């Protein structure tokens, strides 16, 4: 997943021409080829946009009338349901892993941090889009407060929901973790997040598709590798369905 040499991309393109019509979907060759193509797109996007390049932001008038909930739209966990009913008084967001100062923050503490408000478009991998106004602290603020260590390469989001009997999780690299539009949103269109959209906290990673926008976030974990988490794909949908880890395309 990490930067492959340019050579492998060229080799990948060459291999495509030679093997496009054969049944190689499950083979090692195909897997390497797909990964090279995905890494190539990410490298191109970042080279052209810069690491801090912003996704488009919209005006309030441009928002969609509603915001669709998809994937998990409810959480079975009794503690979650009890917290949802009472406004999440005992919900804590942990910041842990490769940090010098692990944190456990209440919603009130998160709202007391500097806030970013952004009206952005959410693109589902299926093809549809919705536009909403999100508010919350930047992930970078939390990572700095927790003194994330330099060996951390990825940030993993641990969630309260389950799909296919597995705990939902997602991961991003440090470029997206420190992107100015990467926030932990607690409100949508000026209201606390509804359950279907990830109450009480969800991620906004605005240059990637919907399945990266983890909902019902319980913990933020700094790691060097996600190979030992779940099936090692870096996220629930990556593990169960084989979705691309880099969801910028």
């Amino acid at each position, binding site marked *: 997943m990490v930067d492959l040499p340019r050579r492998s991309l060229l080799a990948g393109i060459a291999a495509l021409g030679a093997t496009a019509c054969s049944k190689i979907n499950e083979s090692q060759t195909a897997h390497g080829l797909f990964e090279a*193509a995905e890494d*190539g797109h990410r490298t191109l996007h970042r080279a052209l946009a810069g690491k801090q390049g912003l*996704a488009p932001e919209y005006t309030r008038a441009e928002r*969609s009338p509603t915001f669709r909930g998809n994937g998990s739209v409810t959480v079975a966990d009794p503690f979650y349901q009890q917290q949802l009913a009472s406004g999440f008084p005992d919900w804590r967001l942990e910041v842990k892993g490769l940090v010098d100062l692990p944190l456990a923050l209440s919603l009130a503490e998160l709202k007391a941090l500097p806030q970013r408000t952004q009206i952005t478009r959410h693109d589902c*991998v299926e093809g549809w889009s919705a536009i909403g106004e999100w508010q919350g602290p930047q992930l970078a603020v939390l990572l700095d407060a927790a003194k994330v260590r330099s060996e951390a390469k990825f940030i993993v989001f641990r969630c309260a929901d389950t799909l296919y009997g597995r705990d939902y999780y997602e991961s991003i690299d440090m470029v997206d973790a420190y992107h100015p539009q990467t926030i932990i949103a607690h409100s949508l269109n000026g209201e606390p997040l509804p359950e279907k959209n990830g109450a009480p906290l969800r991620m906004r990673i605005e240059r990637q598709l919907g399945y990266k926008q983890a909902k019902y976030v319980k913990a933020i974990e700094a790691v060097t590798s996600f190979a030992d988490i779940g099936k090692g794909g870096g996220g629930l949908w990556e593990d169960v369905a084989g979705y691309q880890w880099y969801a*910028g395309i």
Partner: protein
Amino acid sequence: MIRKHALSTRLWHWVNAAAIIVLFMTGLNISNAHRYLYWGDYGFEPKEAWLAVVRFPGWATIPGHYNLALARDWHITAAWPFGLGVLFIWVAMLANGHFRRDLTTSPGDWTPGAVIASLKAHSGAHAGGAHGYNPVQKILYGGVFGVLLPLMLFTGLAISPGFQAAAPWLLDVLGGRQSARSLHFIAAWGIFSFFVIHLVLALTDWRLILEMFTGGRRHEAPPQPAPPPTEPAEEGVPAHG
């Protein structure tokens, strides 16, 4: 001897053919994930769609069953040879004169008379006129190279959330992300239509297909008034297809 098809043209032709087949058939699989098209920036309610697309059957898609992850793997991989190929062939066509010689039209090419004449020539038994492209060919190929292929490429880039940070203007030009997605779909069927016509015409004469491998031979118009041809239209291998 001057080749009818430059090496760059032949190379690109077959790489591009493979790429667009993969892109089209994986694209139909991706379309099945959300079969509704919208105009504007957003759209997710089927009742707001301008088009409810049919569900494409397995024989028309890659892979042959619904698998969004694998279809996307193939799609974003084949996007590389397709995208770089469009760039390559444009540079090559401008450099080797193919564009200026065969694809640029003059006002006279757009008259009904010129179009009818070239269609008639086509329907005849490979009648002469093999020196360069006729007006219908120029207009069709010009539309493919100048409109459809770039539109396909730019709408594909525009619907990628990671690319929009690099070129937010692209979404504005295309009228929003869902408009770009709709145009991507329309352009795909435009290319498919060309593909069908192109294939049918090429299959009328196997030499045309062979020449796209070997390069064939281009017959330049004689610079001086030549003696009357003693051989009939034999040399006139048509340049269509």
